[in-house]
């Protein structure tokens, strides 16, 4: 036979009745005290249970998670280090700042020069085409058909020259992109502080004359044929001057294991040109 549950008002009525007498109040205090003991014991049992669960995880399957975490952190560290080295390698070997003499900056200058070179070449072609048009006008009274043909082909040459405008615009876009990348790389260097990082060396050019290979000179740095001729004629027999040192801008050959080569005399050079 089940005991019917008390309503809230019935519970309060009985509790107030007990609280109205000293024995009743002593009963209530003892009841509360026992309830607290039961609650504390319950919390303690739950704590032990949680601790055991955590211990099992750490000693068992949890250990592998920590190992993976450590490995991931290690790989992240290595990746960051590689990135620092890659950024450092963007600097020139002499440590010049990226904003000045960097590879990216040099690349943009080369592209700018391509634009200027094609513009000059296109101008020469246009001059020739315009000359042909004038010739066509001149011969028109005596050879109308020939004049028309000349004029037609010269016009085709003219319109074909519009490639310079289009390639110029494309290259300008690439230059702008490179400049943007340069700014971002500079910002990354500032953030990551790669000043002390060791740069990744470029694969060495194995060719024996690699130190002399600089490509076309930039405007203002080039030598005229007359200057080259003068340099060649200035290397006389018995001169101490070495050819690489006379060619401004060319670096002397790096030291090698083999004995140093003898100075090149003018007569040696003359024999090469004879």
């Amino acid at each position, binding site marked *: 036979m089940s005991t019917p549950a008390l309503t809230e008002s019935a519970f309060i009525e009985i509790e107030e009745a007990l609280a109205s007498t000293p024995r009743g109040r002593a009963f209530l205090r003892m009841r509360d005290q026992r309830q607290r003991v039961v609650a504390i014991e319950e919390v303690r049992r739950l704590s032990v249970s949680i601790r055991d669960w955590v211990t099992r995880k750490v000693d068992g399957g949890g250990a592998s998670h920590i190992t993976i975490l450590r490995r991931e952190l290690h790989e992240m560290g290595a990746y960051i280090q590689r990135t620092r080295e890659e950024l450092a390698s963007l600097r020139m070997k002499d440590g010049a700042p990226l904003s000045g003499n960097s590879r990216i900056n040099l690349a943009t200058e080369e592209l700018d020069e391509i634009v200027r070179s094609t513009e000059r070449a296109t101008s020469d072609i246009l001059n020739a085409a315009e000359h042909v048009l004038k010739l066509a006008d001149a011969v028109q009274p005596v050879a109308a058909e020939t004049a028309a043909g000349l004029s037609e082909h010269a*016009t085709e040459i*003219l319109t074909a020259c*519009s490639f310079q405008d*289009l390639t*110029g615009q494309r290259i300008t876009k690439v230059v702008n992109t490179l400049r943007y990348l340069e700014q971002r790389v500079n910002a990354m260097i500032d953030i990551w502080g790669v000043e002390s990082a060791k740069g990744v060396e470029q694969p060495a050019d194995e060719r024996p004359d690699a130190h002399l290979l600089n490509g076309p000179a930039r405007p203002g740095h080039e030598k005229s044929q007359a200057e080259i001729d003068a340099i060649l004629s200035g290397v006389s027999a018995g001169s101490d001057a070495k050819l690489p040192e006379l060619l401004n801008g060319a670096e002397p050959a790096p030291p090698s294991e083999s004995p140093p080569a003898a100075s090149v005399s003018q007569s040696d050079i003359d024999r090469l040109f004879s």
Partner: protein
Amino acid sequence: MSILVVDDYNTMRRILRNLLEQLGFRNVDEADSGSTALERLRTGKSYGMVISDWNMEPMTGLQLLKEVRADTKLKDTPFIMVTAESKTENVVAAKQAGVNNYIVKPFNAATLKQKMESVLGPIA
């Protein structure tokens, strides 16, 4: 009739000048930017047509077109855009700004003649 050719590339100005001369237009002037062209249009002689590039600094061809259309004295000047910008949105923007025709680079003499005739009528 005088024609004003506007392009920041000297090469393209020379090409257009030569093609226009082939078509019989001997009175051709050049400007290397939208701002230079606008100054010339407002202060110089009257032009029967403007042939302009789009991508220029500091003032683009589209800005020049809008300035021309907003100017009470210049608003009726025929204006042809000759540009490498060939996206639909470019053509739409130019059309909305009041361009008379639109030529995409690279182009040939026949195209230039055809587009000019669509604006000016038959060219001898």
